[in-house]
């Protein structure tokens, strides 16, 4: 079994975890929830193992490099980071309903990587521009940031659902964490994501300066990462200095995540230096 097969299996494990989380939320039973946690844990382990296997395989092919060099590999890493961060949150906050919103993102990400006909899962050799020690730092920082923003997005959605039901009548929303907890969690995820997005942009700039001789050239990917940075910077300032919270922060967090998605996928439709990320 090679890494691609293993990661295809992981896709289905995550899919099962997502279903279990959702059914535990809807039917309010503990058993599917417990199963969901263990399935998600298993998926994350398999996911990490798949990444490591792929790394080893690339060395066996004689083109050894960290598996962070194209769309397939980044999506696989993305799902792994979201899964791990989510599991940490679940442990800290002892609430599984967030899983019903986070695990589908994990599943969709890896399913898109494994199943989309547009994404090739072969290990490819690195082109000269990507041969750099900055590759690992840059990609990891960016995707830790993206993963945190993805979870903030899921939690913001939960906030918006929950706040519509002020009287607590809804059957589905009754076990959601308190509004203040959701609001606080969004903020924490955004600060975490903002730090790593900043590190990602900075390592990217340093790398660009050693590869192309310019640390900033307004290439569409750079520009969109900066747009994302501006949006989350707005969120942080509005919240910390102007006391925004709740609904408004949830909306900004959702808009921010749309910008993240455009930085990740949409930019590939535009011409620019990051074309190998397709």
């Amino acid at each position: 079994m090679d890494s691609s097969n293993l990661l295809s299996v992981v896709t289905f494990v995550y899919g099962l975890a997502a279903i279990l989380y959702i059914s535990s939320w809807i039917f309010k039973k503990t058993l599917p929830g417990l199963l969901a946690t263990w399935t998600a844990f298993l998926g994350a382990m398999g996911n990490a193992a798949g990444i490591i296997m792929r790394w080893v395989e690339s060395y066996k092919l004689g083109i050894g490099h960290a598996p962070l060099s194209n769309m397939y590999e980044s999506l696989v890493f993305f799902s792994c980071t979201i899964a791990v961060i989510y599991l940490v949150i679940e442990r800290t906050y002892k609430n599984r309903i967030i899983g019903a919103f986070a695990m589908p993102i994990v599943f969709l990400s890896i399913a898109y990587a494994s199943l989309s006909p547009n994404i090739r899962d072969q290990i490819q050799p690195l082109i000269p521009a990507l041969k750099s020690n900055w590759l690992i730092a840059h990609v990891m920082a960016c995707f830790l940031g993206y993963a945190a923003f993805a979870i903030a997005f899921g939690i913001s959605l939960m906030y918006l659902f929950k706040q519509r039901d002020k009287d607590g009548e809804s059957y589905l929303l009754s076990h959601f964490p308190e509004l203040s907890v959701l609001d606080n969690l969004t903020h924490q995820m955004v600060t975490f994501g903002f730090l790593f997005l900043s590190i990602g942009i900075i390592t990217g700039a340093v790398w660009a300066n050693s590869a192309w001789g310019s640390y900033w050239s307004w290439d569409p990917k750079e520009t969109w990462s900066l747009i994302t940075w501006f949006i989350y910077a707005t969120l942080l300032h509005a919240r910390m200095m102007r006391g925004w919270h709740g609904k408004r922060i949830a909306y900004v967090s959702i808009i921010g995540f749309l910008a993240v998605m455009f930085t990740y996928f949409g930019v590939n439709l535009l011409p620019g230096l990051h074309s190998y990320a397709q």
Partner: protein
Amino acid sequence: MKKENESADFFSRLWNFFASIRLTVVLLLSLAVTSMVGTFIPQNQSPAAYFHEYGEFFYKILSVLNIFDMYHSWWFQLLLLMLTINVIICSLNRFSTTWKIVFVKIPPFSVAKFRSLSTKEEFTSKRPIKELKKKCEDIASKKFSYCRVEQTDKGFFIFAEKGRWTRLGVYAVHFSIILLLIGALTGSIFGFEGFVNIPEGETVNSIELRKTGQIHNLDFGIRCDDFSVSFYETGAPKEFRSTLSIIEDGKSVLKEDIIVNDPLRYKGINLFQSSYGMLPPEKITLNIVSRETGMAYKKTAKIGQPIEIPEGMGTLVIKDYRDSFNYKSLSLGETFIGILNKKDGNSINIILPLHFDSFDKMRKGDFIFSVTEYDNRHYTGLQVTSDPGVLVVYSGFIVMIIGCFGTFFMSHQRLCIEIAKSGNNYKVIVAGTANKNKLGMQARVKRLSQNLARL
């Protein structure tokens, strides 16, 4: 007097304008929205390309607004400048208060403030007060950098705190943005960005600037000793490598290989591997086979100079070399093109693809021409930059990361443990505050109190 008042009034209004967080939000969002435009409209293309794409009317409107080089336009730079002023004024406005909080010799504590907190942990202890005091002090001084005990008539207080300096984190982040701006400005005023193509074996002393197309002279010469490109089995490029020598006063002072991601830096000037290409050959060797006699001849030809064809059949001029050539929608790759002047006065085109030796056979002429040898030289394409602002920008990067970390993940935490006699026992109250992540602080206080109660 009135005028003075007016100007003071104007100044304070301006100050207040720039001191507003609302302005920050507006500027950040405007920057986010306007930045999008330049990612959808390709930047710095030729005017003709824009004219063709958008038509005359929109071309005029967009070029008046500098949309085709918008990140360097006056209005985009103005937004960046306003954001920087905004950052500076906001920071100055709050800095003196923070300064007074951060730099105190004896951190002040107000017991009343801790007593009034809604979340407090309480327990009673039967232990003797000396032991209790020692335990509390031990734990507080282990977990916090500052610790102080104060005696009261019923018992005592322990105050502890840490992370007072983290209140400066946000100023570090703001300062880093100013550093980035200074660095970028330094680079754009004192630096340059250019490129140069150097054929193997040749030396250049000047480069062409990207922005203006002007020639910029360097203090030294760059010689390209060798260029090589290697490919993976898949055909994807593996490595571009140039061997460069730095020439000063006619002598080679430094010899180094550069590849992508590993540039050469010399006297503040950076040389990056950026592109490569083949120089058009100047001399080729032709194989000429006579259909009639079956004889084969070898002849060398210089581009543009006619050669005699054996057996007195006329002359041939190789007039052009193309990197790629299409013949009836067939791609032939690198190809020489010549004109054959027959002795009867007719002239015809001769196509000599390098990779298809017998291509000329199809012409069914009296002679079959093919290329056996040609001189091939690479040239290396170098990006040449000088940016004295990079160090400032990089220090800005470091300050920003440290500042963000301090701002988001560390906080100024204060703890108060109050121990007072009540009856035969002692009542212990543990309370804490933090300027950030208050929920996290509550959890910490709870754990600490449980620790103490267990003793």
